[in-house]
């Protein structure tokens, strides 16, 4: 079992429980569900002009990372090599919590995401994807005649 980055702090845990309860009572969740404990962990947010996705992917070779945006679905895929040396017979593994292997996570983006204007940067193991919203979807002030 791989442990996620969830805190052991009691109050933060209780907040998380409350959030998950609210999602459980939401009667029409998205068909892709609310994947949790996945690798990489995702934070998704937005500003009036952009959509921002943060994927916490420490230790991933940038060459193996793939980011696709197709029909409003953002896919982040790649591979993380295991830290354990497979050959050393004398090595003992005391704690093994970190994820290793291939991964793929999918996020549905709102309709106004512009697939032509997407930007992805990897820094300190965090992949930051910025998708611009279409200009037509920006709020406009309507002048009253």
């Amino acid at each position, binding site marked *: 079992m791989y442990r996620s980055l969830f805190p052991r702090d009691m109050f933060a845990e209780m907040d998380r429980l409350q959030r998950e309860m609210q999602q459980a009572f939401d009667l029409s969740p998205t068909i892709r569900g609310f994947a949790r404990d996945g690798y990489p962990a995702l934070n998704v947010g937005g500003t009036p002009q952009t959509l921002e996705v943060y994927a916490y992917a420490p230790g991933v070779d940038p060459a193996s990372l793939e980011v696709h945006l197709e029909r409003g679905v953002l896919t982040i895929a790649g591979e993380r090599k295991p830290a354990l040396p497979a050959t*050393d017979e004398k090595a003992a593994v005391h704690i*093994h*919590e970190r994820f290793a292997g291939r991964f793929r996570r999918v996020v549905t983006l709102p309709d106004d995401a512009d697939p032509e204007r997407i930007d992805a940067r990897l820094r300190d*193991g965090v992949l930051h994807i910025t998708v611009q919203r279409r200009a037509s979807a920006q709020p406009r002030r309507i002048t009253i005649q």
Partner: protein
Amino acid sequence: MSRDVQTTRGDVAPNERSRYADAALTPPVDVIEDANGITLYADLPGVSRDKLDLKVESDTLTIEAESGIALPEGLRSHHTEVGLARYRRVFTLSKELDTEKVSAELAQGVLTLRIPKARHAQPRRIEVKVA
């Protein structure tokens, strides 16, 4: 949990800030021991070298770090899996480890810590006598 829960609860007005003042994520780790020492790998995404604090005090190893992700202005969060920007994890070391010679490396959000064994603690083959 070493924190005193009672004092936290007893706050007159526990606002968000004081409530999360010392909350931290527990980073996942791998710990591998070989003949010459122990290697620890810890996932610390978003942490740059200057935000990483490693301490060895007698037999306690403390890893503390802060992720420095710059958020754009006016960001509204829709979905959050990583809710805190701080990491902390504490380990108790054993006597045969040489805490003077710990080496650390931080790359792509992964900390690699190497703690060698003290010279006198290196493995010796023990002869098994057949009686």
